[in-house]
């Protein structure tokens, strides 16, 4: 089954290379289930940024500032330095690891990128090392490490293996298996922390949980949900310092929506192939445009196609341009111009009872507005 799926996916990709989405790209498959376009791109293995630039010819906008990348790298390195001393201290003060539980393995140190000839080989070696360590833990070997920095695990989506590198895996000797840790250089401001940051960090940790469940399943574990509960740790940064804070999180909602997306992927691939004319590929703008999207106000947060979808929504007067509440309320009217006709009583009279009620509602609001201004 695997080779045929690869062939089908490669055909759908056309001239575009396969992007390794990593956790950040992978969780997009569950982000907007109604948006078939984003889901198709993710299943086929194309990143939305690549699509925006290569297919729609939009200027590349998605990028992180070099200063943000610098602080991110420095914070990651500070956590892994000196045998992950900072992380050990963090988990000791939180009472999660005792002094004896200080077994650390730093995978990138064992297989640094520079030392080998090509990247594929390095990744394969890291995967093998991680596999051995996880097997060690499954055998409840006392020497199994408590902290693994930057392991590499596979998540299969439609037979296509995506390499996922959770920042850290942590487990005390008494834990049955590891728990993924997501390290983010966002400042931890308790209640004032950006909710969009928490959401994306929790989703990426959830990809870690799904990856661990995937590899546990390959290692013959039957009840993966019991072995790897939907839990993860967020390590954020104390504002203004390079010191970490530990926030354990339950990820039931995020893991559940991810697993549902993976489960539906095969049927999505069939749908996609039925929807497109034979032999067409996603690198052709017309084909991509023909796949239905579902533009929401939250798309700007994670998808590079948001600008393009907005222009399309404006072009055909889709009420979502005025926000999600407008989209739902004006659903009966279908478009902004129709809604305005109903409000003013111009144009075709209301056809359905729903349009009748909406017309009445809008007319009433229009009069109140005119009177009051």
């Amino acid at each position, binding site marked *: *089954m*695997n080779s045929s799926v690869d062939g089908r996916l490669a055909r759908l990709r056309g001239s575009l290379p396969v992007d390794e989405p990593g956790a950040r790209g992978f969780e997009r498959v569950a982000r907007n289930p109604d948006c078939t376009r984003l889901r198709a791109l993710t299943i086929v293995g194309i990143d939305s940024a690549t699509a925006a*630039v290569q297919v729609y*010819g*939009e*200027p*590349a906008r998605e990028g992180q500032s070099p200063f943000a990348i*610098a602080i991110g790298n420095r914070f990651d390195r500070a956590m892994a*330095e*000196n*045998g*992950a*001393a*900072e992380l*050990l*201290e963090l988990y*000791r003060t939180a009472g999660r690891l005792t*002094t*004896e539980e*200080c*077994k*650390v*393995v*730093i995978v*990138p*140190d*064992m*297989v*640094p990128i*520079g*030392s080998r000839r090509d990247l594929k*080989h390095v990744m*394969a*070696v890291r995967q*093998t*090392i991680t*596999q*051995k360590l996880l097997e060690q833990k499954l055998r409840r070997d006392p*020497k*199994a*490490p408590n902290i693994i920095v930057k392991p590499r695990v596979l*998540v*299969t989506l439609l*037979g296509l293996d995506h390499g996922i590198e959770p920042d850290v895996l942590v487990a005390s000797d008494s834990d049955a298996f590891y728990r993924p840790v997501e390290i983010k250089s966002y400042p931890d401001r308790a209640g004032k922390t950006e909710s969009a940051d928490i959401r994306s960090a929790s989703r990426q940790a959830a990809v870690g949980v799904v990856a661990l*469940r*995937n590899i546990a*399943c*390959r290692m013959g574990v039957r*009840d*993966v*949900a019991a072995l790897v509960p939907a839990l993860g740790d967020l390590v954020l940064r104390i504002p*203004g*310092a*390079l010191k970490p804070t530990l926030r354990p999180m339950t990820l039931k909602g995020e893991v559940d929506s991810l*697993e*549902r997306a*993976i*489960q539906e992927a095969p049927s999505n691939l069939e749908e996609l192939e039925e929807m497109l004319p034979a032999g067409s590929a996603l690198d052709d703008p017309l084909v991509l445009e023909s796949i239905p999207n579902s533009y929401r106000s939250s798309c700007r947060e994670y998808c590079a196609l948001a600008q393009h979808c907005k222009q399309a929504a404006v072009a055909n007067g889709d009420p979502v341009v005025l926000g999600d509440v407008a989209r739902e309320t004006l659903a009966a009217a279908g478009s902004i111009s129709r809604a305005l006709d109903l409000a003013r009583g111009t144009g075709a009279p209301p056809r359905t009872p729903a349009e009748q009620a909406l017309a009445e509602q809008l007319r009433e609001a229009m009069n109140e507005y005119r009177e009051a201004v």
Partner: protein
Amino acid sequence: MEHRGSDTILSVSTPVDKIRSKISEVIRAKQDALQKMESVLSDAAATPAALDEAQSEVDHLTAQWSRLIHELRVVQFESPERFGAHRNRAGQRPMREQILDLLDELGVPSSPRVISEYAFACLGIELPIARFASLRRDEERGYSRDSSSKPAWVVPALNSTGFAPIPRLVAISVWPIERRLIGPRTLRVNHLKILLALIGRVDTLGPDQEATRRVLALIFRFARSVPGAGQGVGEPDLGRIRSAAEAELQAIGPTDDIERAQAAERLAKLPPDRQVWGLPPMIKREPQVDYKVSG
């Protein structure tokens, strides 16, 4: 937030004419960037991306051009100073020797960053971390050509299970096997041993106040994760840090030694070259099982 500037040292050793040729290059590049911009503007079918592309190209080159002008003015007016700091300070002894001495002082396999910080703190020498990668390859080539040509080689530490080399942890080939092995707890044990070595080194620094301040700063950073080191409360004293570090070492050191000793016995059975350079890790092809969602 304390910050010691970025890590990589950009060694600028371009004399005046070199900058001038660079500037003329940039000017030519800018001219054809402007032509490209004009052609994009004239043809109607150009996508906004192309226009943006040309525009950012021009911006980029202008920024580069103004920077080089700065550079030219700086170089012309200042007395030519030899850049490349790391060469004039560490001039007399090749880097390889210095790393061997530092490793002896540290006593355990250490990462390039720790060695470089230790060298700068104690001796004020700057050892750029980027140089370690090339050093590692030279040592490997040198050893394979003729292993007896040098008394001691800078070699990677070895993982105690499977004996895979760990390139980012360097050791000395003449060290006994168990000292070059890294068991599950060894990273933590070595961290504590380095901390104790640093504390020991403080009183050997003598009158050099600057070095003492740097070493103390390094000690406090290393001691942050040691329970009972009493960080942050008043003036931290070395005595308490030393006893705390020794206590933790006492707790985990013995088990680590035993593990490494057992691994050393197994490694001793291998041919001498493998005892120094370890065994490359095998890549396992795992079976293709589709992941069924539980529950």
